[in-house]
């Protein structure tokens, strides 16, 4: 009996030790060791920056060999929640100032955010414009299938602002969780029209036609970028932000349809 007790006790000790070790581990971010040696910059960027930041990443890595830029793309609100929740990230590029401000208020930003790009809204329709949409007023047509981004996504907020400015009560059929899914459904012809960013219509990966929104009704989206307080690679992170704000960075942004301050 004593032998059995001893065996059981040691097994329990091993279990507890394993649990303690696991708890002490910071999690997956810690297994890479010192990131500054590896030169990894984790950039949390709004999904509307998907295409342009891919190009920025390529250009930056070319002139900074030894630094690996990793893009974490999602809706700005999701990214904000991640950062507030303590998720590891070095840089935050948001699609609106609202989400950035929340991160700033929480004290998670190192220094001050800078607006690096601007975007305008545009109506997107499937190729060939089968529903013959011409203006925002058409969004009030019940017979059309209209999609917007969800309200809590910057694209959705701005789209609604534009509609309000135009005095249109849109009859919406779906509030998509991201600009990407909205574009996909417009591309597929399942939706007749939606409001997206100008850059989305211009980007080569989209197969949609764009209809301009008149200046009077349009809304400017401002994109701020900042290095985060908890960055594990602050030096390379700062380099990245500087690159985005540099002439080379601005050239790429213009190429993709953004306007720069």
């Amino acid at each position, binding site marked *: *009996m*004593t032998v059995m*007790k001893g065996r*059981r006790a040691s*097994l*329990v000790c091993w*279990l507890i030790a394993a649990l303690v070790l696991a708890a002490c581990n910071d999690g997956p971010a810690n297994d890479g060791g010192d990131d500054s040696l590896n030169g990894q910059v984790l950039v949390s960027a709004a999904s509307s920056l998907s295409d342009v930041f891919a190009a920025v990443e390529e250009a930056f890595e070319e002139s900074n060999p030894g630094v690996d830029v990793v893009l974490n793309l999602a*809706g700005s*609100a*999701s990214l*904000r*929640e991640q950062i507030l929740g303590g998720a590891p990230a070095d840089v935050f590029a948001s699609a609106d100032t609202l989400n950035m401000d929340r991160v700033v208020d929480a004290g998670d930003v190192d220094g001050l955010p800078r607006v690096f790009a601007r975007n305008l809204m545009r109506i997107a329709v499937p190729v060939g414009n089968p529903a013959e949409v011409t203006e925002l007023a058409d969004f009030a047509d019940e017979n059309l*299938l209209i*999609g917007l981004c*969800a*309200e*809590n996504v910057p694209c959705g907020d701005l789209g609604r602002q534009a509609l309000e400015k135009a005095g249109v009560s849109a009859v*919406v*059929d*779906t*509030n*998509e*969780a991201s600009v990407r*899914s909205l574009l996909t*459904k417009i591309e*597929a*012809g*399942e*939706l007749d029209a939606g409001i997206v960013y100008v850059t989305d219509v211009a980007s080569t990966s989209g197969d949609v036609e764009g209809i301009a929104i008149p200046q009077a009704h349009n809304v400017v989206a401002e994109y701020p970028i900042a290095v985060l307080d908890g960055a594990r690679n602050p030096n390379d992170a700062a380099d990245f932000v500087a690159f985005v704000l540099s002439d080379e960075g601005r050239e790429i942004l213009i190429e993709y349809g953004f306007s720069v301050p």
Partner: protein
Amino acid sequence: MTEALAPTRRRSRRPPLVLVVLAILGLAVFVIPLLGLLARTPWRDLPTLLAGDVVIDALRLSVITSLGATAISAVLGVPLAWMLARVEFPGRSIVRGLVLLPLVIPPVVGGAALLFALGRRGLIGEPLNRATGLVLPFSTWGAVIAVTFVAMPFLVITVEGALRNLDPRFEGAAATLGAGRWTVLRRVTFPMVGPSLVAGLVLTWARAFGEFGATITFAGNLEGRTQTLPLAVFIALESDRDTAVALSLIMVAISLTVLVVLRERWWKTP
């Protein structure tokens, strides 16, 4: 030394310590997230939140779509299960594989497939739309179809398994007692697979109730028309935490109730 002589009866009745520790850890996997949810709940505001439009609409839609999916699964799934279990037709194993497919592919992929098939420009959706003007995506029916797609396999597989395990001698005995084919099905086959059928229905309902990816991809997201509870939680999570928590609580409460109540009454092994 004295331990060896001590009475061993009591000790041997207790389960082994290692098992207990592991079991508690296993339980923690389920309980801790629940505790997190309860800790975050704004208890004082809860009644107001639960009465909000978003919540009521989402609840209504979840109930409609999950029950609708369960009903469709029963009506179409039971005959399909019977065919798979009893009839030897060419390509039977392929058909069974197809039935299992929604269990394996990511729900979003399922939703996309539904869009390609039943959307306005879809393989079947396009002619359907031109002929009848019917548009399935972005409608409540679309939501029902999306959750049916992911949930029905549960029913088919459960019932097929039960039918296969049914000793064919019972149906033979019924036949020798004068029962025709329909009578055998009605009085012997289905009563005997009854418990499995109910278990299958519960599983189907539960899966339909929790579906997210296929719904948002095929039916879209619109409050009052297609925004079921899971979709509402997802959207609310980033902008209105308190509502998200309230919605989550409802889902947990309903699911727990159904599973606990039905488990006691129907999950008896024959």
